[in-house]
């Protein structure tokens, strides 16, 4: 879905980067094929970049090479999340801190699963609160203001119309509001099965009950599609005020360009 949003941004003529938080080998080529840049955020590299930006060269080198400092960073709870959020912020700046890096109009982040994703969004604020004063507090506040500002940062929740994913999405919505001061701008409901039969047709097939494998398959598909629709209704009922977009189920590899077109139609 991140790749599809990236492709949509490119179609609209924007300079786009898709940032991955957990390394995956299979997404990069899809993203670059769509004309967007791809980065994989590595907290260790982000830390070194940050130090080089903050400190005079020799000091930064000394610190980056210091074992004590590496342990300190690795052992501090939440440090990885903070560095990840910091790098996302850096990618979004008009004047990039990374020397020679070009600016982007749109940064799409493929965030980790719900709980961890919220932790990344919330880390800057947590550190800002914990530090209270000093550069970390100041920068933490700047980053959390960007991530918490609906005008600059949109959180897109991606789910499927099944019971557990819907629960998780509703929990995400609550956690976003509580921990990161955010709310989803859009909920994308993926893999919605087609509802082919009318209730009347299904009842007729049930009544025939002739055990024909095609009839059994059609009825099973009908039930599944019906359950999905009731989950979708539940999601919409509980997430009132957040727009939802559905995308149809496809059994094979997702077609990123088709997804992008569909998203474009849906959000128009």
């Amino acid at each position, binding site marked *: 879905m991140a790749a599809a949003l990236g492709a949509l941004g490119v179609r609209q003529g924007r300079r786009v980067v898709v940032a991955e938080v957990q390394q995956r080998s299979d997404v990069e080529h899809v993203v670059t094929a769509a004309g967007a840049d791809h980065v994989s955020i590595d907290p260790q590299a982000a830390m070194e970049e940050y130090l080089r930006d903050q400190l005079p060269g020799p000091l930064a080198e000394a610190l980056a090479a210091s074992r004590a400092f590496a342990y300190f960073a690795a052992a501090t709870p939440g440090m990885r999340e903070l560095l990840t959020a910091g790098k996302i912020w850096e990618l979004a700046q008009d004047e990039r801190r990374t020397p020679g890096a070009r600016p982007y109009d749109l940064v799409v982040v493929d965030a980790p699963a719900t709980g961890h994703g919220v*932790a990344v969004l919330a880390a800057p604020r947590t550190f800002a609160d914990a530090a209270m004063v000093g550069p970390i507090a100041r920068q933490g506040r700047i980053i959390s203001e960007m991530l918490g500002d609906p005008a600059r940062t949109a959180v897109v929740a991606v789910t499927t119309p099944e019971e557990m994913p819907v629960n998780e999405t509703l929990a995400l919505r609550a956690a976003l509001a509580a921990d990161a001061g955010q709310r989803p701008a859009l909920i994308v409901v993926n893999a919605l099965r087609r509802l082919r039969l009318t209730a009347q047709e299904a009842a007729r097939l049930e009544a025939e009950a002739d055990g*024909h494998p095609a009839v059994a398959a059609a009825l099973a598909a009908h039930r599944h599609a019906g359950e999905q629709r009731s989950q979708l209704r539940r999601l919409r009922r509980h997430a009132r005020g957040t727009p939802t977009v559905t995308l149809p189920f496809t059994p094979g590899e997702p077609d990123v360009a088709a997804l992008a077109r569909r998203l474009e139609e849906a959000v128009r």
Partner: protein
Amino acid sequence: MRSIDERISGKRILICAGSGGVGKTTTSAALAMGLAARGQTVAVVTIDPAKRLADSLGLDRLGNEPRLVDPARFAGHGIEMRGELWAMTLDPKHTFDELIEQLAPDERTREEVLGNRIYQELSSAVAGSQEFTAIAKLYELDRSGRFDVLVLDTPPSRNALDFLDAPDRLTNFFEGRALRVFLAPTGLAAKLMGRSTSVVFSVLKRVTGVDLLQDLSVFFRALGGLIDGFRERAAGVKALLADPATTFLIVTSPEREPVEEAIFFAGKLAEAGMPFGGLIVNRVTPDDGLGAEPGDVVAELAPRLGDELAAKVAAAYADARVLAERDAANVRRLRAEVGDDDPLLIPQLGGDVHDVDGLVRVHAHLFGEA
């Protein structure tokens, strides 16, 4: 395989691993229920069950201890409980607090860690803490000797390694230089308290701000008091994971991403020398009876159902064929890559499986009674 029985008999600890959203919780609960029905005292530790599954087992978020599931809940579903089924939902933050309470050498250390702002604000948010607390709880339940079998539903984690690595990471942390650097009399902790102004310290101060540093140094110093306890616990947990009475079951669905993750995890299990018990593939579209071409189906059904309905049925049938082919291909890939020639395949069960009735149906497939 027809039944999971042969893979788990004699095992004391069953760990169900796999991606999120593949029916791991339901599988774990159905497995535990089946073993309890056969006369054993079983506890299932779940992480985040669907609300209705939790309700149907009488689980709530309070307590962080297993509770006996009322056998009457299963009576109406043809399941006679000869043993006992206990169930709990893990609360990572609570478990971590308990662990600190158990391991702290004295009250002062305990209060220092639990009261530390860094610990409070960050202990629950950190990735990996769920993994560690889940096995810490498992270890504690195993040591209690109250249960014949423990079933653990692992946290949904993109990186399965987090789970296997948790005890090692903790041991390395405590045995490694990290803490020594902080705790040595001339170490960082001492420096942070203001007795020295080394380059590293003054730079750290500049980068982070002083308050945060002091909280951190108090945090690390207090943790230092827990070293022995933590080291012992982590070693125990690691031994438990590698114990011959422990087995890992990999749960997946026949879709691309969970399949890749299952293959990856199986490789890591083998690498780490952990015991692998077998593969359970949920939600497989059965391919029997799907031989006919959709065109022939229309011709066959049209006289009875009319052209329009016959065409709709044939279209749904064609979808099912594509899905069954995809699933079969993924199962073949799993067989070849995971090293389980005979995985347990559980069909896509119509209707909802997040209630006792659903558990009973999954159970029937798990134990070969379907």
